[in-house]
């Protein structure tokens, strides 16, 4: 599972938060409870990786809006993430010709940083910055592309630390591992300094081994705007779906171009919208693309996307997000706000299925979503007596369990605001 645990201090409406995550979560809470602030943690990490910490702070509105208003610069802003990168086995090499190959597989890793803001303005210093890469070390043979005779040597850890910009590595590898720290960490990674106001996460030094690929920059936070999807899009653009799904038609064009992908997309689409007979992407004036859809009721008449409902367009985007985007963690804000309650169960079934391959988190106010989610999937965000946001799991609460046992549905407890008892 990509992100297994998250810990934050002095971040937006949170004073302190420490919570384990599962593969699928439905984040609920009343207005202004802190749902968006919770999602901002993941956006912030993603933005640091892509744009750097200075820009990431600015993208959140500056230090003033990033720290908790009541705490301010009196405490560091801390974020710690325990995560599981893609578990690929990478060959490190061979000690000599007659010995087995050495391989390494990433496993549970963690990243932590702390920032101390100046008492005024957006100035800050980095007080802690540490990545711990967990790995399993093994020996193996290679037959063509396949690895065989895989034997575990043991568990290891590679720590990468930046202390006031000075970069250090600490390698703890199991007994019997023949390579030294010097051999494992490439020479061009040593004795370097991380530039001022720069976190490890934004440098190549956080990724000293080829198997530890970047992770946080692949987090996607979707806020699908169905009105935007109905417009034609330029023929040029990204092949990944934009976070507002504005380039949906372009992404769909690529799916249609691959018969196997189109078959799969059509099946999934018809599972939710049985009346759809076919869909295509048409070129308009040679410069833009537009989605057209053929309904079962009018076989000789294609409808342009401008005539399609917001819910239909949202479902197109959701299927792409859930089944065609290769991301370790996806967050979807209010995904069912345009979808009929009868179809919500089907969409949630798809989300649960897709969460076997990627971590999925959605925010919602919809009682239908709550009804179709399992109690274990829910994360409830509320405010404590001091106004700090807290995240709890209704599944852990005895009172909630008792209500459920007595056939009071989750959705009723949600409507009555009793999930936080």
């Amino acid at each position, binding site marked *: 599972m990509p992100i297994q645990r998250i810990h934050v201090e002095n971040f937006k409406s949170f004073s302190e938060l420490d919570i384990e995550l599962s593969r699928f979560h439905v984040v609920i809470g009343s207005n202004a409870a802190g749902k968006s602030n919770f999602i901002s943690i993941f956006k912030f990490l993603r933005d640091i990786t892509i744009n750097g910490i200075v820009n990431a702070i600015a993208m959140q509105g500056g230090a003033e809006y990033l720290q908790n208003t009541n705490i301010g610069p009196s405490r560091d802003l801390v974020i710690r993430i325990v995560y599981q990168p893609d578990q690929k086995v990478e060959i490190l090499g061979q000690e000599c010709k007659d010995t087995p190959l050495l391989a390494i597989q990433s496993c549970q890793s963690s990243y932590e940083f702390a920032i101390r803001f100046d008492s005024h303005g957006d100035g800050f210093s980095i007080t802690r910055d540490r990545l711990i890469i967990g790995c399993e070390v093994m020996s193996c043979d290679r037959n063509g592309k396949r690895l065989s005779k895989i034997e575990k040597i043991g568990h290891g850890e590679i720590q990468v630390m930046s202390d006031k910009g000075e970069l250090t590595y600490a390698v703890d590898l199991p007994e019997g591992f023949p390579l030294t720290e010097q051999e494992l960490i490439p020479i061009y990674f040593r004795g370097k300094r991380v530039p001022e106001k720069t976190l490890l996460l934004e440098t190549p030094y956080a990724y000293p081994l080829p198997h530890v690929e970047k992770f946080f920059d692949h987090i996607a936070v979707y806020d699908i705007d169905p009105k935007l999807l109905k417009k034609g899009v330029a023929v040029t653009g990204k092949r990944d779906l934009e976070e507002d799904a504005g380039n949906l038609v372009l992404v769909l064009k690529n799916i249609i171009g691959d018969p*196997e992908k189109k*078959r*799969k997309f059509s*099946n*999934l689409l*018809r*599972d939710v919208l*049985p009346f759809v007979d076919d869909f295509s992407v048409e070129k308009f004036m040679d410069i833009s693309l537009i989605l057209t859809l053929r309904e079962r009721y009018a076989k000789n008449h294609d409808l342009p996307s401008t005539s399609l409902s917001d819910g239909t367009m949202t479902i197109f985007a959701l299927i792409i997000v859930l*089944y065609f985007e290769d991301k370790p963690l996806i967050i979807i804000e209010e995904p069912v706000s345009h979808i009929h309650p009868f179809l919500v*169960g*089907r969409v949630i*079934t*798809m989300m649960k*299925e*897709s969460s076997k*391959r990627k971590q999925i988190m959605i925010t919602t106010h919809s009682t239908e979503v709550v*009804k*179709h989610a399992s109690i274990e999937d829910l994360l409830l965000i509320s405010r404590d007596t001091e106004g700090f946001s807290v995240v709890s799991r209704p599944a852990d609460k005895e009172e909630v369990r008792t209500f459920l046992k007595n*056939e009071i*549905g989750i959705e009723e407890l949600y409507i009555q605001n009793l999930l936080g008892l």
Partner: protein
Amino acid sequence: MKKHLFIMVEGEDDVRFFGRIIKPLFVSRYDSVEIIPYASIKRTKVNNFLKSVRLMKNDYIFVADIDTERSVRDKKQILYYHFSNIEGSSIIVVIKEIESWYYAGLSRESALNLEVPDLSLTDELTKEGFNRLIPHKYDSRIDFMFEILKYFSLDSARMKNHSFRFFADRYYLADPIHGHRD
């Protein structure tokens, strides 16, 4: 008054099956055919729903998996206990789970096309067993189920699953099969 048929099913996998395969076989007999997934509805509400359907003199079929019950009779007893308004004649028990009905609809040729094993009987096929049969090229179970429904043969399903055959014969969904099963 218009005559409606309500098919009460457990979850979304059942909705998909009944929506694509069974509903078209009933549409000519009723003004409307509605499929209602009941697993996420509280029992008292399901019971009141059944009561309303009966008061309106509409028809309903209540579909339930046999789960861990030893016999159809035992399963019906459980349902009588939970729903006072249910009638035994309207209950259809799926053995074992709806996945066994999906798979039963694959003829030998269809199984070959989908690159899955041909099973002569699916009475013992569970959800877990079905999941193990999904070829690697399908990374979505929903996609695979949908693909099965494209190939679904009523005759094959009646040959390969006893409970489906009972259901199909009970509601005259196809010509009766005479003689031995192969």
